[in-house]
């Protein structure tokens, strides 16, 4: 069989099993635009993330990647279909979830220490314990010397480290990331990807990582979801069979990696082109 020799095994989407960490089952979501029209953001969307699995989602801009993540957090509700997290229907913002944003979501008026301690403090951990925990996590991301600094005094990479510590301190069972590293330069991004895999291997959370960078997706993921141009639905799912632990700076030159990236790119290219031509039409 061909899929045996190829590292990227194309899977057929199936109804999610009951014990999945995240199960999005045949979801359609429509927004009501300010002028009163309905606009479909995603349709007939099915996705499963097993416990401890690292899933990446790639797709053209505006296809509904951020919307998908917001369905898992509970900030958005599906129009039809249902979303379950750790087997339970999503009703409220779950304590099991951590979210790393694309833009800086650190609080600029709080020092690194106060930013990282925010989660436990919000959740009612006693002050002393929260700060001890925060110092520990700041150490793990290598920012100990900067705990008194304010975000504007840090570089972009350091701010991202602080954001990772802020999210990981809650030890989320579900980790959602929305293009978290897209604003970083190449070297910093590679370093942050290594950092992320390192933290993740310690926590064993289930991850949904959204990116528009296919190589990033292949390098990080166990499973890559390719979405169609908006309204988005799952076009295909690939199982990435690269051994772990992975080293980001080397994996790019791995022939197996290159082969997988090529196969998925062939799939994704059409959608990107479609998305772009639609974008051009819309702007005329």
């Amino acid at each position, binding site marked *: 069989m061909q899929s045996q020799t190829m590292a990227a095994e194309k899977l057929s989407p199936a109804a999610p099993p009951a014990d999945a960490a995240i199960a999005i089952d045949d979801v359609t979501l429509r927004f009501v635009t300010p002028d009163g029209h309905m606009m479909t953001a995603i349709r007939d969307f099915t996705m499963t993330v097993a416990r401890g699995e690292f899933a990446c989602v790639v797709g053209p801009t505006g296809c509904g990647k951020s919307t998908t993540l917001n369905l898992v*957090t509970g*900030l958005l509700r599906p129009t039809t279909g249902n979303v379950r997290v750790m087997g339970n229907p999503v009703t409220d*913002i779950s*304590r099991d*979830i*951590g*979210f790393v*944003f694309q*833009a*800086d*979501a650190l*609080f*600029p*008026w*709080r*020092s690194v220490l106060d930013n990282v301690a*925010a*989660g436990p403090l*919000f*959740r009612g951990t006693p002050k002393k314990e929260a700060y001890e925990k925060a110092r520990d996590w700041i150490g793990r991301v290598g920012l100990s010397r900067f705990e008194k600094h*304010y975000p*504007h*005094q840090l570089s972009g990479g350091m701010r991202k480290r602080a954001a990772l510590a*802020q*999210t990981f301190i*809650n030890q989320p069972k579900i980790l959602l990331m929305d293009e978290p590293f897209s604003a970083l330069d190449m070297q910093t991004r590679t370093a942050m990807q290594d950092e992320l895999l390192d933290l993740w291997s310690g926590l064993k959370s289930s991850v949904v990582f959204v990116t528009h960078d296919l190589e990033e997706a292949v390098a990080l993921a166990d499973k890559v979801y390719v979405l169609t141009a908006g309204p988005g639905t799952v076009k295909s799912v690939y199982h990435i069979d690269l051994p772990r632990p992975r080293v980001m700076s080397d994996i790019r030159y791995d022939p197996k990696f290159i082969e997988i990236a090529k196969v998925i790119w062939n799939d994704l290219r059409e959608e990107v082109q479609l998305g772009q031509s639609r974008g051009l039409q819309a702007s005329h």
Partner: protein
Amino acid sequence: MTAISPTDQAAARATSIVAAEAQARARLRKRHALVIGLRLAILVVFLGLWELCADYNIIDPFFFSSPSGIWEQIWSWITEGTSQGPLWLQIYVTLEETFLGFAIGAVGGIVAGIILGRNKLLADVFSIYIKIANSVPRVVLGSVFIIALGLGMASKVALAVVMVFFVVFANAFQGVREADRAMIANAQILGASPFQITRSVIIPSAMSWILASLHVSFGFALVGAVVGEFLGAKQGMGLLISTAQGAFNANGVFAAMIILAVMALVVEFIITRFENYVVKWRPAPFNEQGT
């Protein structure tokens, strides 16, 4: 042959950097002195010209006063007191009204701004009434307050409150609306309750808007108090002005004006210090670095 060791080179470079830094600092100091000197020069020239014009009757000192006349008036108020009692008492009364009005108006404006900024329905319902109330010329309310609340302190405080409230309210409301949505979502997912979000995200991010309005509105509170006194009072700087006006005493009007300006500047300075303390997390704006 003499070899230059790398350590010698490094040492030489270090001394030259130190020298360059000292030079740059000296240049900055010189510029600072120049700015201060020019400011003083302009003040001296302005006062000098005014005095000369008054002396030679180019402008009539009866209407436009003169620096020496103003100074004599202030000095006599300080040493002999005013017709309504000691000068300090007048300043104290006006400041008390101003501060009370400022505090009540600011707190009310902040609270109302945050509540309406956080609640879309309330904002949509009340926005029309706030617009209407805001378009009433507020100084006119002074007469209403004097009729309703009498010649005492209450009417001045009330006028100062309405002067301050709308400015602070508008800014607090805007600040709440501008709060970054990603930051709010971040706090929510980290586990913050709605109250915690208001306290640790909404209020700090609206803070620079609120502080900006406090700067402006303290001046408004002072105007409110003085106008209130002007319309009818037993004490205060506004009464002092209106008495001087009644006696065609230009010196008195100018002198009171200058005392009010000094009061406003002192408080402005204190508010700026407070602001710098509260928002010390903010990067220094470029034009303030190096002074």
